[in-house]
Structure formats: structure tokens, C-alpha cells
């Protein structure tokens, strides 16, 4: 007994090593440890606040380019307002009752503006921390976009912060399609360049050219249809089947992500409840 005890004590570092390794690896490979451990990720209060602080400092470094982006966007919107106004006036002049038209096109979506407090692009599984949380109306599985295109999907929420699975995450798959067609495929990141993403499983008979636009398909409730993803850079056949795989240049610049919007589908809960009810019957 004494010998056994001595043996264990002498080699305690081996046992401790194996014990620690098991802890680490089980945390790593337990399927959804990420969602379960609300406190062990950057949406927790301490880490969130620290990232907010450093995000504020960092945001001063690219004020110039952010400013340029915003003023470009502003100009675009002004132009659009002008165009719409002209159209509206034309319709009014034709004597069509616009109040009826308005009530048909109701806007299902509303946007929660948020600031990026932390963002990574150099891992294989990248996550983004935003400064909006449950108290601001953010919920799990909401889509996130910036003024250029898609950013990611909310994966966990605390009171004041939320963590977003970046589109640059090898575990995320999003549905997307060629603009102005109904051919859709699945977007996935290959972990290599933060500027490109792959569109897979696109049928081989689809005709397209480099430079064509890829947008979200709208088949899930996460993103509305037609949100910009990027443009086709090049394509290759997948070795074994009838699908295309193409390299898409992302419209979003993940290196400088600052101001984003979280998409809230106003009728999501209602729609889900209705669907559940019909399935139950």
C-alpha cells in the first residue's frame, strides 16, 4: 500500500497531465459545449466589457476609412430616396391610391444597429462579439449584416452582449443563390483566406460568369432574400459529382468590421407558432 502510494505521488505529474488533457479535449470535442457554456465565452460580462474598451481604442485607428464608407453609403441612400420620391410622385400623378399599396408591402424586418467589440479572422472557427444583448431584443439565430453584405448568425446572447458565428467559420453553412435565378447552393468557408468563401452544391447546368453576384436565398428565417454575399471569382467542378464549387469574393470586409446590423424578423415568432400548430394537428 505504501509502495503504491509512493508510486502515485512520484508520478503525480503524469496523472495530472492526463487528467488535464482529458478535461481540455472533452471541452473541445463535446458537440455543443459552445452554446452550453454561457460563461466561458466572450459574451460574458467581464470579457465583453474589456473588449468594448479595446474596441473603442481600436476604432480610432480606422475612423478615416469608416467615415469614407459611411459617406459613400449616405450618398447612395440619398440617391435612392430621390429616385423613390420621383416614382411616388409619378404614381400619385397617375391617380393610383398609394395607401393601399403601402399596406401590402409591409416591412417584416427591423434592424438593431450594433458595434463590433471583438472580431477574429485568423482562426478556423471565428466568432464576433457585439455590444447588443438580450435587453436590446437580440435573440439566438438572428442574422447579422453590415452595409456591404452578410456577416454571420447570432449564436449566444447575454444581457448586454452577443456572440456571432462569423461567415468565416468552417462550421457554418448558409444558403445562397445566384442573383436573378432560383439556383441555390450552400456557402462554406475553407479556412484559408478571409476575403473568399466557397459556394458549393450548385447544379452543374447553371450558366454563370465570373463577376456574377451571389445573394442570400431567403429559404431560412435568418436572412431575408437578396442580401449581398459577394461576386464569383472562379469556379471548379467538384471531383466526384454533378455539382459546381465556386470561389466567391466576399462583399464584406472582415478585416475592418465596425458597424453592423442585427436583423430581427418581426413576425418570426408568429410564423413559427403557426407552423407548429399546423404540424401538431
Amino acid at each position, binding site marked *: 500500500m505504501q509502495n503504491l502510494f509512493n508510486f502515485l505521488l512520484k508520478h503525480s505529474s503524469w496523472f495530472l497531465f492526463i487528467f488535464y488533457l482529458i478535461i481540455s479535449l*472533452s471541452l473541445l*470535442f463535446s458537440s455543443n459545449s459552445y452554446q452550453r457554456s454561457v460563461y466561458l465565452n466572450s459574451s460574458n460580462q467581464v470579457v465583453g466589457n*474589456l473588449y468594448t474598451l479595446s474596441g473603442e481604442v481600436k476604432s480610432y485607428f480606422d475612423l478615416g476609412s469608416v467615415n469614407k464608407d459611411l459617406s459613400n453609403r449616405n450618398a447612395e441612400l440619398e440617391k435612392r430616396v430621390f429616385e423613390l420620391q420621383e416614382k411616388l410622385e409619378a404614381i400619385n400623378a397617375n391617380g393610383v391610391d398609394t395607401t393601399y399599396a403601402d399596406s401590402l408591402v409591409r416591412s417584416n424586418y427591423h434592424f438593431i444597429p450594433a458595434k463590433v467589440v471583438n472580431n477574429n479572422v485568423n482562426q478556423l472557427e471565428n466568432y464576433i462579439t457585439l455590444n447588443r444583448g438580450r435587453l436590446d431584443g437580440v435573440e439566438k439565430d438572428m442574422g447579422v449584416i453590415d452595409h456591404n453584405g452578410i456577416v454571420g448568425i447570432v449564436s449566444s446572447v447575454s444581457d448586454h452582449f452577443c456572440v456571432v458565428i462569423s461567415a468565416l467559420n468552417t462550421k457554418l453553412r448558409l444558403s445562397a443563390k445566384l442573383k436573378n435565378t432560383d439556383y441555390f447552393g450552400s456557402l462554406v468557408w475553407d479556412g*484559408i483566406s478571409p476575403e473568399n468563401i466557397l459556394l458549393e452544391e450548385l447544379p452543374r447546368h447553371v450558366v454563370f460568369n465570373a463577376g456574377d453576384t451571389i445573394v442570400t436565398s431567403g429559404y431560412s428565417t435568418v436572412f431575408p432574400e437578396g442580401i449581398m454575399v459577394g461576386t464569383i471569382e472562379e469556379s471548379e467542378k467538384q471531383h466526384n459529382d454533378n455539382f459546381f464549387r465556386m470561389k466567391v469574393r466576399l462583399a464584406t470586409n472582415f478585416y475592418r468590421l465596425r458597424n453592423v446590423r442585427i436583423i430581427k424578423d418581426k413576425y418570426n415568432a408568429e410564423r413559427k407558432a403557426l407552423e407548429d400548430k399546423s404540424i401538431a394537428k
Partner: protein
Amino acid sequence: MTSITFKYIFSFLFYLLLQVLILNNLYFLGWATPYLYVYFLMTLPRELSKNMQLTIGLLMGLGLDIFSNTLGMNMTACVVIMFFRPYLLNLFGSREDEYDVPSFRTFGVGAFLRYATLMVLIHHITLNMVQFFTLHNFSHLMLRIISGSLLTLILIALIEFFKMTKR
């Protein structure tokens, strides 16, 4: 003794925050990121018990993982290098020498660089293997390991060089 303990607690926090707030945002050539916290783990006092070293490694890894949302990833890499550390120390620092912490001065430049290279390589290989567990893009994996290790080693050598000339 307590003042030294405080010093190490402070530098633990310093390297942790340096890594998550600044270094994790560097992508040299698009992907190479230096992992300087390995330097903190490398230069812990030799007298620390092996169990203590493993525990410090585990805590450092946990801290990094909480910040970068990669639970278990850095933990594995840190625990693995802290396990190998005592053996590497015996390999490169001659036993007769009286020394407390490994450095250019106590080990000599060549031996310290060899020790640092091995530590950094073991760390990067473990970390990247764990990250790439499901991917088979071998050349990209090697590229990440080599570029990241080189960048980390250059930083470590620079810090050691300044520490040596200061005295």
C-alpha cells in the same frame, strides 16, 4: 517570495491580455499570428513543481480560450507544452548551472534558442492539429505552423536580446 508571486501573477495577466487584445488581431501575410504567451510559460522559474506548471498552463489556456471562443483549444496546447517543459529544461540547461529562469544569459544564446524553438514548435503543432482536426489541407497546415512559429520565435529572441543588453 510573495513579491515574486505577485510579479508572476501580474505578468500572467499581462501576457494574457497582450495576446487576446493585440496579438490575436495580427495576421501577418494573411494568416501568421504570433503566440507570445508561450514565452511567459517558457520562462517560469525552474523550481516550480511539475503539477504547478501544468496548472498554470491550464489556466493560461483557459483564459485565452474564453476570450477567443475556442474552448479547449489553447488549453490542450498549453498543457502539452508544460508537460514537455521539464524534460526540455534538463536537455538544454546543464544541471550543474545555478539558474532560476531560462534566458539568453543563463542558457547561452544557442541553447536558449534551441529550447525556445522546440517549445514553440510543440505548441504550434498541437494547436494547429487540434484546429485542423477535420480538414485535410496539409500544405496549408504546415504553412500556418511554420509561419506562426517563426514569427513567435523572432519576437521571443527580440525580447531576450533587449533583456540581455539592459543588464
